[in-house]
């Protein structure tokens, strides 16, 4: 008993003794360190290996890319964004037509939804998982012309290369100069069918113009699966900037 008490007192004493206040006397840092070129770490490799083996099947080639395409190589459009929006439209429109006997007018996705780059040369499923990791599904909304105007203002304000197709916009001095949809003059009194993802339809990335549409059609198609399917069919992939959305001077 007594011994226990003594131990307790000693412990309390040492605890209170170590309770010193320290002050920062100096902070030092250099440039953030680049992580690269390293020899193996066996224990780490052992953890990764079984998982890596299970996803090896994704290394199969689905197609070839003529050049490297990025989401960051333009201003209000990008080579990778154009490629992805074009493919998703081509793959989704027939499905939508089967469902409704109507065509989709244009498509809009989000800049943040495209990650990484499509490298020159062979394209694997793994690459496409990295570019579009999400579970997002192709969704078509029918929206009023006034919502399309909101969408165009959003583009103007965000000033990012959100992937789009069949939508052409020219801005001049922050003002809208021209809007074409599927090569036709935009009409604010018309309703439009827009292809997007279920995530954006719910107002993701502040695309609130998709939030309460006149009609919603869930095509139940994973966007990445559509990319994989299309590239398998096409085999050779190329893309370019075409001034679909731009600021004139």
């Amino acid at each position, binding site marked *: 008993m007594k011994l226990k008490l003594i131990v307790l007192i000693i412990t309390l004493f040492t605890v209170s003794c170590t*309770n010193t206040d320290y*002050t920062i006397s100096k902070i030092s*840092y250099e440039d*953030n360190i680049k*992580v690269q070129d390293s020899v193996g770490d066996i224990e*780490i490799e052992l953890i990764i290996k079984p998982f890596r083996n299970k996803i090896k099947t*994704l290394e199969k080639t689905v197609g070839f890319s003529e050049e490297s395409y990025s989401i960051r190589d333009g201003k209000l459009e990008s080579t990778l964004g154009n490629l992805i929006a074009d493919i998703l439209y081509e793959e989704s429109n027939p499905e939508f037509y089967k469902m409704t006997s109507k065509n989709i007018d244009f498509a809009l996705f989000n800049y943040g939804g495209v990650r990484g780059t499509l490298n020159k040369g062979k394209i694997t499923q793994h690459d496409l998982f990295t570019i579009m990791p999400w579970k997002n599904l192709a969704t078509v909304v029918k929206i009023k012309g006034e919502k399309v105007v909101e969408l165009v203002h959003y583009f103007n304000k965000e000033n990012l290369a959100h992937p789009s197709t069949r939508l052409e916009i020219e801005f001049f001095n922050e003002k809208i100069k021209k809007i074409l949809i599927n090569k036709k003059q935009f009409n604010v009194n018309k309703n439009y069918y827009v292809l997007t993802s279920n995530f954006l339809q719910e107002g993701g990335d502040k695309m609130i113009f998709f939030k309460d549409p006149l009609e919603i059609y869930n095509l139940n198609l994973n966007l990445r699966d559509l990319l994989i399917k299309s590239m398998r069919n096409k085999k050779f992939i190329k893309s370019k900037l075409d001034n679909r959305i731009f600021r004139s001077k």
Partner: protein
Amino acid sequence: MKRRNFLKHIKTSTICGLTLPLTGLTSSSNKFKKITILHTNDVHSHIDPFPENDPINPNSGGVVARSNLINFIKKGNPNTLVLDAGDVFQGTPYFNFFEGEVELKLMSKMGYNASTLGNHEFDNGIEKLAKSLKHANFSFLNSNYTFKNTALENKISKYKIFNVDGIKIGVFGLGIELNGLVEKKLYTGINYLDPVEISIDITNELKFNHNCDLIICLSHLGFSYSKDKNIMCDLVLAKKTRNIDLIIGGHTHTFLEKPVQIKNLDDKNVLINQVGCFGINLGKIDFYFSDEKIKESSDNIKV
């Protein structure tokens, strides 16, 4: 070239580290204590390094290289904390197929001490996130989300205090407003609270109730937003709070060359650092402490 300089720097500090236990015996004569903070953010499931044909970051990143670097630095200074500022998940098939198990097992192995919840931690929903946490032997910290009646209740701490060589380090986490970033059904039940108010409360608690010597915020708010300077972000947080020494940021994938210094409400310096994304860079900041008592504690109280 830069890396070689860095290694040289590490080697000298390793030699210093060897002499530490000796001086440690004569405790009070030990003038400085050095704490090293290593950190990452937005690694997004990048387990393997970038391929050699990657046009921007060939052979960069990867868990193996990061682990070696962390071990090397820790050998030089065992008094090191390894922290992360969220978005551990989502970005490679490792997450699509294994739902967080690989990332969390590897971070545990690498000796991470804490991380915070990024918006992409919710990509499989609250239940799956809660389940995946069993693979982590470190804490996920968040103080501005409410988790009551969700699967995450009691699984996320507001803050954690690390006692490293007698230095008390309080670490707390802040998350971004999930509305608009995550599908509603994936985070139902979680409410977002104002990061500034929460930070003021938490840092008071850490500094005055727990006597922390160093306060670090793991923030997934984003460094700053060019379209609107008033959007909540690390720059705003630093200016509108007190008692935070270091904000380790994330979300905006901002590749800072080195930490930036901002004045807080008390006109004291706050460091903010963010190392981009995908495990390409590692942040390293050394704090040196002297064991003199803070004489004017009243100085800290401002009404």
